[in-house]
């Protein structure tokens, strides 16, 4: 055995410490730092349920989230794909901070830090919140839970797809704009994280573009509407170009979300415009796909907070904004009871009635059939596979053959009327179809208390062009819900009284 030099213990110790630092301490420190920097999954939370509804997360940022600063920079970099400056131009609403400046994100968007990047995506309020003004020179009042009558979903989708395909969607354009807006990105963010995020996001959006090609081919939905169930077909990657053409051009008005509890107790109503689902939690989870969630990434505890809020949230009273002629309304009550209550409930709060929450066959109701035809038996059975493997797999979607008789709570704020928003006011709805406006403008938030509906005869408001809805276009038909049973043959005085009564809902 060769003789080996004996190393003194002190040197051993030093070597050991050195080695230990290099192989254990240093990597551990780096790992810890990386975990701190890129781990974690922290949504921005709000204690107040209404704030949570407006700005809280549904979990959509995981899969679909836009890095916060990219979200901020896009309207500047891709301004040519928006009708005007900023997200405001497609009807997103910015609330003011206490100091009078605008909040940095619009109503209906949430923020979450995930994989080391702050991300933004939409939540339920983007389609279920809007504003109302009592006159053109009055300030807007934000009403959570009402249909987002100003938000243009189609323009929103098209903006991102067009922008991602634009050569300016690149770090060379985005990072300087981000810095200009005062991001003050650190070195890592500036040279590593954000450039990577930009590339990843571009790929993601472009990969999805094929699945959304059909949207570009639809007649414009305008503000306040979305093609609900053709969008749902995208989840399954149905080859959209192979669908029966009669399934397309099926825009649906955003509904209100108030008072869900009496919609499920004592009897679960068939809801969605065509009454295709009786289970509120399924309707919510189904809607959550629209906020970018997937079964593994949905944030159920936070969705549950929204769910709890919409159970009992109430619409604001018409009388807080405009006077109601109580005597006239009282004259309208028996007319309502005779003509409408069986289908729409005893009143704006009492939803009892033999046919409330049931489906009236299309042949009877006679409204535009495209929304109905867009929802197919084939889609219904496919939806029963959603959330497979979870205890809350969808089981309640059903193909129906008509439209649902829904409660009319807060009906004044749910204009324009019918499932496709083709009738601008309650007064117009009480006319036979040929006397309803053939063309009108959507997207104004100034209210007309006489006809009961948003002002609809002006092509622009506050310097912004409104959407011209032509009832002759496919999907926009304003026929149906007419005839003696639907009150369109009442005398003019009775109609006036009935409309006055509906203001109390």
């Amino acid at each position, binding site marked *: 055995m060769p003789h080996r030099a004996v190393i003194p213990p002190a040197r051993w110790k030093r070597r050991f410490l050195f080695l230990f630092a290099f192989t254990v301490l240093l990597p551990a420190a780096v790992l810890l730092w990386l975990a701190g920097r890129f781990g974690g999954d922290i949504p921005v939370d709000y204690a107040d349920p209404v704030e949570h509804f407006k700005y809280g997360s549904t979990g959509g940022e995981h899969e679909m989230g836009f890095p916060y600063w990219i979200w901020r920079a896009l309207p500047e970099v891709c301004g040519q794909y928006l009708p005007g400056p900023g997200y405001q131009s497609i009807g997103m609403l910015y609330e003011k901070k206490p100091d009078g400046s605008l909040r940095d994100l619009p109503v209906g968007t949430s923020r979450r830090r995930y994989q080391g990047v702050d991300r933004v995506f939409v939540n339920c309020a983007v389609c279920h919140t809007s504003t109302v003004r009592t006159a053109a020179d009055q300030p807007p009042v934000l009403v959570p839970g009402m249909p987002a009558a100003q938000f243009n979903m189609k323009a929103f989708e098209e903006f991102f797809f067009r922008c991602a395909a634009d050569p300016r969607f690149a770090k060379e354009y985005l990072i300087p704009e981000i810095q200009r807006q005062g991001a003050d990105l650190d070195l890592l963010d500036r040279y590593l994280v954000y450039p990577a995020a930009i590339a990843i996001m571009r790929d993601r959006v472009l990969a999805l573009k094929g699945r959304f090609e059909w949207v570009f081919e639809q007649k414009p939905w305008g503000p306040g509407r979305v093609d609900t169930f053709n969008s749902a077909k995208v989840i399954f990657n149905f080859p959209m170009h192979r669908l029966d053409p009669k399934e397309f051009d099926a825009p649906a008005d955003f509904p209100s979300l108030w008072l869900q509890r009496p919609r499920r107790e004592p009897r679960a109503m068939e809801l969605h415009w065509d009454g295709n689902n009786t289970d509120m939690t399924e309707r919510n989870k189904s809607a959550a796909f629209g906020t970018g969630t997937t079964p593994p990434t949905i944030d159920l505890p936070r969705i549950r907070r929204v769910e709890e809020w919409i159970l009992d949230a109430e619409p604001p009273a018409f009388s807080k904004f405009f006077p109601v002629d109580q005597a006239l309304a009282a004259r309208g009550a028996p007319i309502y009871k005779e003509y409408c209550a069986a289908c729409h409930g005893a009143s704006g709060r009492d939803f009892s009635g033999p046919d409330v929450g049931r489906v009236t066959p299309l042949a009877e109701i006679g409204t535009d059939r495209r929304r109905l035809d867009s929802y197919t038996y084939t889609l219904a059975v496919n939806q*029963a596979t959603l959330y497979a*493997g979870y205890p809350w797999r969808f089981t309640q979607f059903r193909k129906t053959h008509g439209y649902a008789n829904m409660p009319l709570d807060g009906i004044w704020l749910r204009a324009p009327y019918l499932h496709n928003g083709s009738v601008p006011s309650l007064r117009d709805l009480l006319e036979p179809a040929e006397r309803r406006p053939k063309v009108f403008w959507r997207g104004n938030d100034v209210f007309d208390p006489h006809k009961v509906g948003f002002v609809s005869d002006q092509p622009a408001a506050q310097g912004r062009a409104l959407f011209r809805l032509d009832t002759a276009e496919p999907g926009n038909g304003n026929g149906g819900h007419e005839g003696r049973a639907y009150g369109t043959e009442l005398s003019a005085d009775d109609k006036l009284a009935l409309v006055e009564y509906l203001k109390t809902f």
Partner: protein
Amino acid sequence: MSFALTPQRRRWLRAALAALILLLVAGAYLGWSRGFRQEPQPAWVFESAESRFRYGSIGAEHDAGVPYWIFYVLPRVFPEKFRQDGQQVAGGYAALGVAWEQGQELPVGFTKKTIGFPRVGNNCAACHTTSYRRSADSNPVFVSGGPGHTVNIENFFRLLIECARDPRFDADILMAEINRVTHLDVIDQLLYRYVIIPVTRKRLLEREAQFAWIFRPDFPEWGRGRDDGMNLTRYFMLKAPMDDRFGPADIPAVWNLAKYKAVAGQHPNYAGDTHDVHSVIIDSALGVLGAPPADKADFLAQVKWLQDYLSALAPPV
């Protein structure tokens, strides 16, 4: 230095050995539990004879079964392969003309059973359930035991093989889609990525040779509601060499089988080539299994149940 086993060393060695054995046992258990452990189907399947006929397993998940999550994402990854009447169709499996009840996770005749991991197989109801609608504007009504006149079986067989042949039948692509629809734990992730997906692909491609005849351009399409049952039997059960014979036949109704009393000389096959209801059911069930049954006693019990059920099943009036 000697390696004599001092008591101390022996103790160490014993401990190490025990640990190793423990590890092996745990690994084996895990492998068995995630790969082969059978779980009974949920109780609702057996709640009625009808639901058992429609969704009850007859054992097809062992060999002919497709791992559940692969089955689940195929329509999303390969929408172009879902064809009916010669054209690409939208709607996934529903577009193949299967009977699919609303609210059900799988179409009638598709069974879900966990053997280590959830798998999808078929049973007789896939072909022997008929559907009708009272008007163009109404939903289908499904009748158990009736001929499945809308289902395109040939397309279903082709579809699985064509997917396996496609280079996109690959762990990266399939896992990305699976992770979008469910949360698999680490073990299942690894299992799917490195075992289940490659093995499924291999199995399906093995079928390609046996199924070569359904890709022959000179054979006519079976179309909806027809099935070349005899060729399936010849090539799968009897391993007969391929030849030019083909004979797609209309799927028959299988209700009220009690009418075939062997003594009366009535025959339950179109060509009258067997006398015995029992053997027809066995033969058909074997066809669904695509391989000898994994558990023969269980299989015969299933056949007995089917025979009793179908013998007594009355056609609708």
